[in-house]
């Protein structure tokens, strides 16, 4: 009997954690309390990110920074914004389910996320039909801002900026005769490879294009393939721990190629292979004095962080400010007036060290990428542009 009881409990627990975690209502903003917490400026926003699944580490960080932004903005603006979580697992189908739940919840006026470009493609039409603004802090595919998704915005630059910028830096500064480029079989990675390859080929560089799943952790066989002529290995990946292991395998097999990683690898706490390069859609915010309070709060509450959290803070902040501006004008926040306010966003500075304003397609105006070199002590050193 006890055994049967255990199974029932295990089954219910499993369902609760695995299946039903797709959309859990949750976090109310902690900083909203106090006598100034306006009763007239009370509303909800959705958060879509991969809180579980293979890239849960990134989604976790995004969620933490979204919560932090809501908490700090509520305190600063005397608003009472509640964040409602939705777990997409980086799966378009799951993102669609979460979006349907959000769009049918009339208390939600805007959404932060989703994280992946493929998810944005899956939910873009649903969001547009619901008139719901949604801002991603990490979706970089070029096709997302060609007019198909009129309520979509992003606070990061697109692949057509990062890919060519990184490829040109490699061609003009590292001068490889041959290189290896390894995609991780995800849209983010293959998109960047597609943007880089023509530049390498035009420069006459011999390219060995390889491909490994994000779930692979053993790179010894691939590393053995790196020839002495291949002086650069380009890794447009999203999991820094994998790149770190790739670098260790290279050291173990005495390969001297330089690793060049894209923004998905920007993680000073994990990817520390000396001599490597990493690009990022934002600077290292721990080195920006104006971000000190945010960095301190984030580190105190959640520990070290990488590159995926701060843009989500920026995205959430844009939504929070839009809601606050609607309330200041005496209106009640709705999807349409929050959408209009987001379109008019014009922040002279942001957590990312650059202004935030959107063009008519929802792209960041004058977005750029930053390039870092990892020193022998594992520190990320900004390369002046």
């Amino acid at each position, binding site marked *: 009997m006890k*055994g*049967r009881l255990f199974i029932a409990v295990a089954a219910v627990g*499993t369902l609760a954690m695995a299946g039903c975690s797709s959309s859990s209502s949750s976090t109310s903003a902690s900083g909203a309390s106090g006598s100034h917490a306006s009763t007239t400026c009370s509303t909800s926003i959705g958060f879509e990110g991969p809180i579980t699944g293979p890239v849960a580490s990134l989604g976790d960080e995004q969620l933490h920074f979204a919560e932090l932004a809501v908490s700090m903005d509520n305190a600063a603006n005397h608003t009472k914004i509640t964040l409602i979580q939705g777990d997409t697992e980086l799966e378009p189908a799951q993102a669609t389910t979460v979006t349907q739940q959000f769009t049918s919840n009339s208390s939600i006026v805007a959404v932060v996320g989703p994280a992946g470009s493929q998810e944005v493609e899956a939910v873009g039409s649903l969001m547009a039909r619901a008139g719901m603004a949604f801002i991603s802090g990490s979706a970089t595919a070029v096709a997302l801002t060609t007019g198909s998704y009129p309520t979509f915005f992003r606070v990061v630059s697109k692949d057509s900026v990062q890919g060519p910028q990184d490829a040109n830096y490699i061609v003009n500064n590292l001068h490889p005769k041959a290189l290896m480029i390894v995609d991780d079989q995800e849209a983010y990675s293959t998109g960047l490879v597609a943007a880089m390859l023509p530049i390498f080929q035009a420069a006459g560089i011999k390219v060995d294009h390889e491909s490994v799943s994000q779930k692979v952790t053993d790179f010894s066989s691939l590393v*053995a393939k790196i020839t002495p002529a291949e002086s650069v290995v380009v890794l447009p990946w999203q999991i820094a*721990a994998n790149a770190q292991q790739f670098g260790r395998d290279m050291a173990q097999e*005495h390969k001297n190629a330089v690793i060049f990683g894209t923004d998905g690898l920007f993680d000073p706490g994990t990817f520390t292979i000396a001599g490597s390069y990493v690009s990022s859609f934002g600077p290292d915010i721990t080195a920006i004095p104006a971000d000190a309070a945010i960095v301190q709060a984030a580190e105190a509450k959640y520990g070290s962080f990488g590159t995926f959290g701060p843009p989500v803070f920026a995205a959430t902040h844009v939504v929070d400010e839009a809601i606050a501006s609607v309330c200041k004008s005496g209106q009640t926040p709705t999807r349409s007036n929050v959408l209009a306010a987001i379109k008019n966003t014009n922040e002279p500075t942001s957590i990312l060290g650059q202004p935030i304003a959107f063009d008519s397609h929802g792209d960041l105006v004058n977005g750029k990428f930053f390039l870092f070199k990892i020193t022998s002590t594992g520190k990320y050193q900004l390369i002046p542009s």
Partner: protein
Amino acid sequence: MSFFFQELVNGVTTGALYALIALGFSMVYGVLKLLNFAHGDLYMVGAYIGFFVIQGFGGAAHLRIPVPLLLVIMFVLAAGLVGGLGVAIERFAYRPLRDAPRIAPLITAIGISFFLENSALLLFGAQYRIYNTSEFISFSSSIQIGSVSIDSVQIMVVVLAILLMAGLRLLVNHTRLGKQMRAVAVDREAAEMLGINVNFTIAATFFLGSALAGVAGVMAGLLFNQVTNTIGFIAGLKAFTAAVVGGIGSLPGAMLGGLLIGIAESFVTGYISSTFTNLIVFGLLIVVMLVRPSGLLGRAQLQKV
């Protein structure tokens, strides 16, 4: 030629790991006819235990005990705790369903897999935990033969895997417990009538299989340096495939299947392209299954009519 041997070394190392996990899979199937899909997640738990042992003794860069002692503690604790977890899973999740239709324990196994994966997420968070093996086992202790580099961790993994496989084979073929396990595998009811404690034998099988998965988890942590709650999925899938290719229920088959998959992956990556690794390796496996449906060393099942 050195490239060939480098890929062979890499393939044998990965294959030894697959073989170790596949052994547990195959043992449980042999005795219970249960596909224990939670097996990969036991491997994940073993990897976490290894990580926390390193942290408990000061972290990779500041170890307070000698490295050999650390390794012994890591392996023994992982084997013991994961073995115990396997026994608990068998006792509370599988035993009550022993006489249920075979689909019931199969679904329960999938449920346990999700349960373990998500429990690890809740307990340890989503971030990757890094072993930093090179901080306490230096590359300078590697062996260099021509341009073939063999890492000391690779050597340790292969040697330990061989010892464990040989030990398990001895246990199964030459001990009283092994004889009981074989008897239960052939006919559980007849074994019970002969006075064999079936529950104990099955629990011991789960302990041994799970302990091997725990040890494999620590090995993977040392080799690949990282652990997160989802690493068990791919490992479990590869181990399952290895067990099936070798002939599920056959221990030598599981070893052979694991090694073959590891080596095939390595050579396809090295000589063709990493892009096609899974395509070609699993394509070959389909061919093997078509030619020998019961696996390379498996025996065809006789059906009572």
